[in-house]
């Protein structure tokens, strides 16, 4: 299914827009898929937010969910 992914910070330099992925229905499998498609992700300790909440355990990705890839914050 196509997943709408928004990437931020340094990840936004190589990922943007909607990504079509097969057999991905949870965040763990999304991670595995992304690192294959974008090997640069390997070196980035990023968090995933589903509908604006950072998830800490593997989470099902519902249709129309908003997925965000968040490298470490560096505000202030």
């Amino acid at each position, binding site marked *: 299914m196509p997943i709408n992914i928004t990437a*931020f*910070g340094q990840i*936004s330099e190589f990922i943007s827009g909607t990504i079509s992925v097969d057999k991905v229905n949870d965040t763990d499998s999304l991670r595995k898929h992304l690192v294959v498609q974008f090997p640069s992700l390997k070196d980035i300790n990023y968090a995933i937010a589903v509908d*604006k909440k950072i998830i800490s355990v593997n989470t099902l990705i519902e249709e129309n969910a908003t997925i965000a890839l968040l490298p*470490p*914050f560096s*505000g202030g």
Partner: protein
Amino acid sequence: MTEKKHKQIFIHGAISSSFIAESIQKHSSKTNIGAHSIFLGQVRSDSINDKKVIAIDYSTYEEMALEKMHELREGIFAKYPLTCMHIYHSLGTVAAGEICLFVFTSAIHRKEAIDACEEMVELIKKELPVWGKELFEDESHQWKVNK
């Protein structure tokens, strides 16, 4: 799903000293306040591998950031008896020497204002989805890392 409208904290570009002065001035009518604590983050011209940072370009995940800030505010107000708290963070380019973060707490007594301000600064650095891209003189860049 109705979405609550959260208070805006983002300002495009640097936070000016006159903006800070106006914020302070507005509190002169609140005569129950005895103490203000203010934290200002200023963009530092660090040298990294012999290249000087000339500015930081800030970006955010705005919907998430405003929701998170609402949650952080509620936590701080529940913990400290504050009269008020104001927070502003820059987006876009802020040159070295300019202000990019303004945290302003006010209370009847100093202890609460000071402790709440310090805690809020730590929370912003750790939990607010904001990213700083350090821009060098030669137009190269590097993503900032918070300590």
